[in-house]
């Protein structure tokens, strides 16, 4: 994999008289990775993000972007920031303009993107965060969660190569949190490298391939999450907790006298590991777009009666928004869990997510479960 960011012995202090926030910090971010940045409050996560985007210049060490040191000139920073977008923890620090659509357009307009293209990007970004109907609303009329979504839309509209999200799910309702993670996956599948910092250990455990754990301005751990969570003392020292699925796996494996490895990361994997199911239910996979999702949904429910329907992806969900579909959030996990329980289900999803379905089926094989997928190419 190509290395996008590299931080070498970076030291940064907001004030020379204060202890450094980043102290001899080393980090490597690879292209296409799902990186989670974990750490307690005050560990230096936000400072790390500002250092990566060139807002803070390290007093010692260097930051390399695509193999070259970051240039702290106007041109150099402009080039860096056209590739790297940040969603800040507090949306009020990020959103600026008076109207929702104006704010989403702010970044692309600053980059000199053509107005028609900006229009398209704004529409798409607002739809992805379920804020289309608020496009012409003043920002001060929105709630905290809605402002958060606008901030995310503002970053999405910049079409970045790297998206850094600082606590993207904080202050959002559970469905919106799921949508954010779904969006992160969509971006990753389209070639964007996504970095997420969060305190929501359960969500990030499910999602991340790499975990970088910060403690007092240094990298405490970098690598596979299970390795980190298997050391409770270290987890405690870093001010974190172990994810629920991880804990449950340890306990149930102990009770059953089996090896905790392989480690399930979500509900369907956990169920597959411990249910001992013999027969897989079928997942009727229906890749859809915004135009044909409704027709495909109607055909699917006509063919498969009395099955649960899951919809995954903002385009499909948008297309089915008015059709009173009783679908489930986190639909992929839900449909795979149904399959493990021997029940059939219909999964309508944006076609971009097809690799994710195959990935999940492949992971279930590690737990000795062969999923019956119908319609997945």
């Amino acid at each position, binding site marked *: 994999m190509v290395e996008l960011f590299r931080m070498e012995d970076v030291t940064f202090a907001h004030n020379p008289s204060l202890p450094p926030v980043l102290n001899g910090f080393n980090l490597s971010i690879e292209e296409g990775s799902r990186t989670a940045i974990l750490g307690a409050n005050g560990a230096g996560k936000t400072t790390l993000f500002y250092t990566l985007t060139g807002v803070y210049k390290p007093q010692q060490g260097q930051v390399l972007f695509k193999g070259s040191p970051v240039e702290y000139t106007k041109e150099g920073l402009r080039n860096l920031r056209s590739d790297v977008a940040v969603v800040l923890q507090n949306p009020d620090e990020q959103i600026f303009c008076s109207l929702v659509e104006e704010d989403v357009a702010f970044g692309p307009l*600053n980059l000199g993107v053509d107005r028609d293209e900006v229009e398209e990007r704004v529409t798409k970004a607002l739809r992805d965060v379920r804020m289309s109907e608020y496009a012409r609303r003043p920002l001060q009329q929105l709630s905290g969660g809605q402002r958060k979504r606008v901030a995310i839309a503002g970053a999405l509209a910049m079409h970045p190569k790297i998206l850094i999200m600082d606590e993207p799910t904080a202050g959002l309702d559970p469905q919106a949190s799921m949508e954010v993670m779904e969006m992160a996956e969509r971006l990753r599948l389209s070639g964007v490298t996504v970095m997420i910092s969060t305190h929501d250990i359960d969500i990030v455990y499910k999602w991340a391939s790499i975990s970088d754990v910060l403690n007092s301005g240094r990298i405490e751990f970098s690598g596979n999450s299970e390795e980190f969570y298997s050391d409770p003392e270290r987890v405690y020292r870093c001010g974190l907790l172990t994810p629920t699925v991880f804990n449950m796996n340890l306990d149930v494996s102990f009770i059953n006298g089996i090896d905790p490895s392989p480690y399930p990361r979500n509900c369907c994997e956990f169920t597959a590991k411990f249910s001992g199911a013999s027969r897989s239910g079928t997942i009727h996979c229906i890749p859809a777009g915004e135009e044909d999702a409704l027709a495909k949904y109607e055909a699917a429910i006509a063919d498969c009666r009395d099955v649960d329907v899951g919809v995954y992806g903002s385009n499909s969900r948008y297309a089915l928004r008015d059709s009173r579909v009783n679908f489930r959030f986190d639909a992929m996990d839900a449909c795979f869990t149904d399959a493990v329980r021997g029940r059939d289900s219909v999964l309508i999803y944006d076609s971009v997510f097809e690799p994710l379905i195959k990935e999940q089926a492949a992971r279930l094989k590690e737990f000795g479960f062969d999923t019956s997928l119908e319609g997945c190419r």
Partner: protein
Amino acid sequence: MEMDELSYSSRMVNWSPLGKLFFVMALLIVGLITDSIVVPLITFTIGVALMAYSTNLKVPLILGLAILEAILIMVLGSGMISIMGDHSAPAIWEGKILWFDIYMTEESFNKAWLIFFRAVAGVTLMLAFACSTPIPHLAQAFRSLHFPSEITELIVLVYRYAFLLLEKFLVMIDAAQCRLGYNGTMTTMRSYGGAMAGTFIFSMELADKSEAALACRNYNGYFPIFRPPKSMSWAWAVVSIGLAVLLYFVGEYTKGWINMVQLFAPLFGW
């Protein structure tokens, strides 16, 4: 905040802000250069009509109270003018109330009414403009007038952060209320003082953070407008100037038509 909401929901929000400004200024100026009460009365009527159209006859109570307060202040101001007449002219009312010497002449009485109507007309017109023009639109109008960009960008910045700080202040007030922060006069004063100091400190913190956030979004000293408001057409100029000229001649023609002393004479026995 109500004003901001009102301006965004106005039926006139898509009209050219520069055109509206030009129209309002033209009417204000003509109201000032004519000595007839008829002209301010007409401009006042235009202002009320515009405000009614703009708000769809749904003027919020707080705005109504603000207008009434402004009128009250103008009544007091005009009242003062009317009772401080020139002592060389005959008085229509003379006396003393507490420390005030009252000397009202026909001229001072008419002048006070003229000033009152001018002020009320001016406030009404400006309110009609303000409740239909969001600040970013006004800033865009200033940009098209080639105002110094520092001033224009500052207007946008102040506008944005004023709301955030106001919100923060209100949150602090509510928080103080939850902790019995208004139990007694001294405690109330201390709570308000604390909230003000807190807001000030927050404003500095916010400035630092926002600067970094704007840098992340490639801000380079100019706030681009996604949907620029309409620019001023010739029609605006023609209508504004035409109406101003017409009102000027109406003013000249109707000078002295309305004598407020004669109107009030039966009431006060002058």
